[in-house]
C-alpha cells in the first residue's frame, strides 16, 4: 500500500509538469500585460513601460522565465499579482478567496450525495414506475440545463419575485443598511448560501442520481444478489449491505473526476452568484492578463484535482476488495 502510494505520486509529477508547461505557454503565448496595464495611462513613456517589463522579468527568454517560476514555486512562492489589489502576493490573494469556494463546493457535493443516493436506489428498485420515470426525466433534463441559467432562474424566483434570499454575495456588506440576517454573521452567510448551494446541488445531483440508478440496476442482476436473496436475507439487507457498496464504485469515480471539473467550473457559478471565490478571481485575473494569479489558481486547482484522483484510486480498494491496489 505504501509503495503503491509512492509510485502513484511519482507518476503524478510528470503529469503536473505537463500541465504546468501548457498553462505557462498559454499565458506567455502573446500576452503583454504591461501594455494592457498602461493603455489607460496616456502619459506613460516607452522607457517606463520597458522598466515595468524588466521589473516583472518579462524581457527574459521564455525558458528562463519558466525556470524562475519553477524555482519560486518550490519555495511556495507564487509571485505577486500584476493588477489586483495593488500587487498583492498571489498566495495571500488565493488565501482570501479559497474559503468561500471550498465552502460552496463541499456543501453542494455533500448535500447532493445525501439526496441523490437514496433517490437513485429507490428509482432502481421501482424500475419503470411513475416515480422512476419522473426521477429519470428530471435528472436527464437537469444535466442539460446550464448551471448559470439555473442560477439566473433561481435568483429571479427566490431572490426577486419571492424575495426570500439575497440574490448574490457571501455576506451582507457594511454599506447595506439592513445589517446581518438575524444579527448573526454565520446565519447571514448561510442565508446567502441558500440559492447558490441549492442550484449547485441540483446540478451535481442530476448525474449522480442517474449513475446510482443504472449502477444499482446492473448490480441487482448479479448472481451474488440472487444468492443473498435465496439465503433468505431481507430486501433491506440485500440492497443496502450487498448491492449498495458495489453500486457506489462508479459514484466514487464520478466524484473524483468531477471534483476537479467542478472547481474548474467555479468561474461560471461564482460569477452568477457574485460569490467571492477563486473562480471569480480567475475571471478578473484573466481579463487583466494577470499571469501570476492565473498560474497560481491553475496550479492550485490542478494539484487539488490530482489529489482527488489519488484519493479516488485509494477508495476503490476500500469499497471493493476485489480491486487490489497493486
Amino acid at each position, binding site marked *: 500500500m505504501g509503495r503503491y502510494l509512492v509510485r502513484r505520486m511519482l507518476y503524478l509529477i510528470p503529469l503536473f509538469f505537463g500541465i504546468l508547461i501548457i498553462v505557462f505557454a498559454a499565458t506567455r503565448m502573446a500576452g503583454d500585460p504591461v501594455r494592457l496595464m498602461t493603455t489607460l495611462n496616456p502619459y506613460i513613456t516607452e522607457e517606463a513601460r520597458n522598466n515595468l517589463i524588466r521589473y516583472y522579468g518579462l524581457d527574459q527568454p521564455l525558458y528562463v522565465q519558466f525556470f524562475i517560476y519553477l524555482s519560486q514555486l518550490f519555495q511556495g512562492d507564487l509571485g505577486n499579482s500584476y493588477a489586483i489589489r495593488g500587487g498583492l502576493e498571489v498566495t495571500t490573494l488565493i488565501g482570501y478567496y479559497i474559503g468561500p469556494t471550498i465552502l460552496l463546493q463541499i456543501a453542494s457535493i455533500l448535500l447532493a450525495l445525501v439526496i441523490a443516493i437514496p433517490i437513485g436506489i429507490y428509482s432502481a428498485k421501482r424500475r419503470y414506475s411513475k416515480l422512476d420515470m419522473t426521477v429519470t426525466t428530471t435528472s436527464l433534463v437537469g444535466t442539460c*440545463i446550464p448551471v448559470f441559467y439555473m442560477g439566473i432562474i433561481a435568483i429571479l424566483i427566490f431572490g426577486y419575485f419571492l424575495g426570500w434570499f439575497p440574490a448574490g454575495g457571501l455576506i451582507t456588506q457594511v454599506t447595506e443598511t439592513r445589517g446581518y440576517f438575524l444579527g448573526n454573521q454565520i446565519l447571514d452567510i448561510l442565508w446567502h448560501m441558500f440559492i447558490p448551494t441549492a442550484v449547485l446541488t441540483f446540478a451535481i445531483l442530476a448525474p449522480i442520481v442517474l449513475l446510482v440508478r443504472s449502477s444499482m440496476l446492473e448490480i441487482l442482476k448479479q448472481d451474488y444478489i440472487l444468492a443473498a436473496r435465496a439465503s433468505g436475507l431481507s430486501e433491506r439487507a440485500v440492497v443496502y449491505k450487498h448491492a449498495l457498496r458495489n453500486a457506489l464504485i462508479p459514484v466514487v469515480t464520478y466524484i473524483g473526476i468531477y471534483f476537479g471539473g467542478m472547481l474548474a467550473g467555479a468561474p461560471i457559478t461564482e460569477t452568477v452568484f457574485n460569490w467571492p471565490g477563486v473562480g471569480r478571481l480567475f475571471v478578473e485575473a484573466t481579463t487583466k492578463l494577470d499571469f501570476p494569479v492565473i498560474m497560481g489558481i491553475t496550479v492550485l486547482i490542478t494539484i487539488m484535482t490530482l489529489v482527488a484522483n489519488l484519493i479516488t484510486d485509494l477508495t476503490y480498494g476500500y469499497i471493493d476488495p476485489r480491486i487490489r491496489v497493486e
Partner: protein
Amino acid sequence: MKTKIKNQNKQNKGASQWNIAWRRFKRNKTALTGAFIIGFVLFLAAFDTLIAPYEPNEIPAFYTGEARTPPSSKYLFGTDNIGHDVFSQVVYGARSALYVGFGAAGIAMAIATIVGLISGYYGGIVDNILMRVTEIFLVIPFLLILLVFLKVITAVAPSGVGGLSMVTLMIGLFSWSSNARIIRGEVLRVKQQEYVEAAKTLGASRIRIVFRHILPNVLHIIIVLTTLLIATSILVEAGVSFLGFGDPNAITWGQQLQKASEAVKQAWWEGIFPGLFITLLVLGFSLLGNGLRDALDPRLRE
C-alpha cells in the same frame, strides 16, 4: 464461385448492422424526441432570415420607445434594453450553437478517434506516450485554460482572428481526451476478436485492419460519443460566452444570457428564452445520444 458468394451477400444485406439499428432507433421514443428537437433547431438555423422578423442588428423597439418591454404580440419574446427583438436574436443564435456544437465535437472526435485507434491497436510504447498525453488533457482544468487561451488570442489579434471559429477550435482541441480513452478501450476489445485474427492471417496490412476491420466495429461508439460531445460543447460555449470570453460579433445564446444577467430583475424575458433554447438543444442531443447508444450497441440486443 465468386459471383455466387457476392449474390449471397447481397441477399443478406437486408438485415445489416445498420438496418437493425435503424429499426431499433425508430422504436425508441426518447431518441426520436431528440431527433425531432434537433430537427426543429436545424430548421430555425437554416431559415433564420425568413423566420426572424428583424435583422440581427436591427433595433426596431429603440425608435418606438419600446426598448425593454415584456413579451407582447408585436415582440414575441419582448425586447432588450437597446431595442433588439429578443425572438429574432434567439432565432439567429441557433446557427451559432449548431456551428459550435458540430465544429467542436467534430474536431475533438477526429483527434480522439485517431489517438484511440493508434493507441489501442499499436500498443507498447506508442500507446504509453499517447496515453500520458491524454492524461494531461484529462486532468487539465479545461475551462480555465480555455478562458486564458481565448483571452490571449483576442489580446494578440483584436480583430478578425478570434471569433466563433476560434472558440470552436479551442473547445475541440481541449475536449477529446476522455473519448480517446473510451475508443482505445473499445479498440483493445475488438482487436482480440477472431475476425481481426483472421484478417491478420490472411496477410492484411495494418492500415487495412485498422480501417476495414476495427474502425467499422467501433464506429457505433464513436457516433454515440460524438452526439453527446455536441451537447457538451454547446454547454461549454454558452458558459464561455456567458463569462464574456466569446466572440462579441457573433449572436449566441450564451451572450444573450450574459447581457440579461445584468438586469434579471428588470427584464426576465431577456434571459429566460435564450436559456430555454440552450437547454432544449442540449437535451435534444443528449436524448439522441442515449437513444443511439441503445440502438447501436450490439450487446444490448434482445
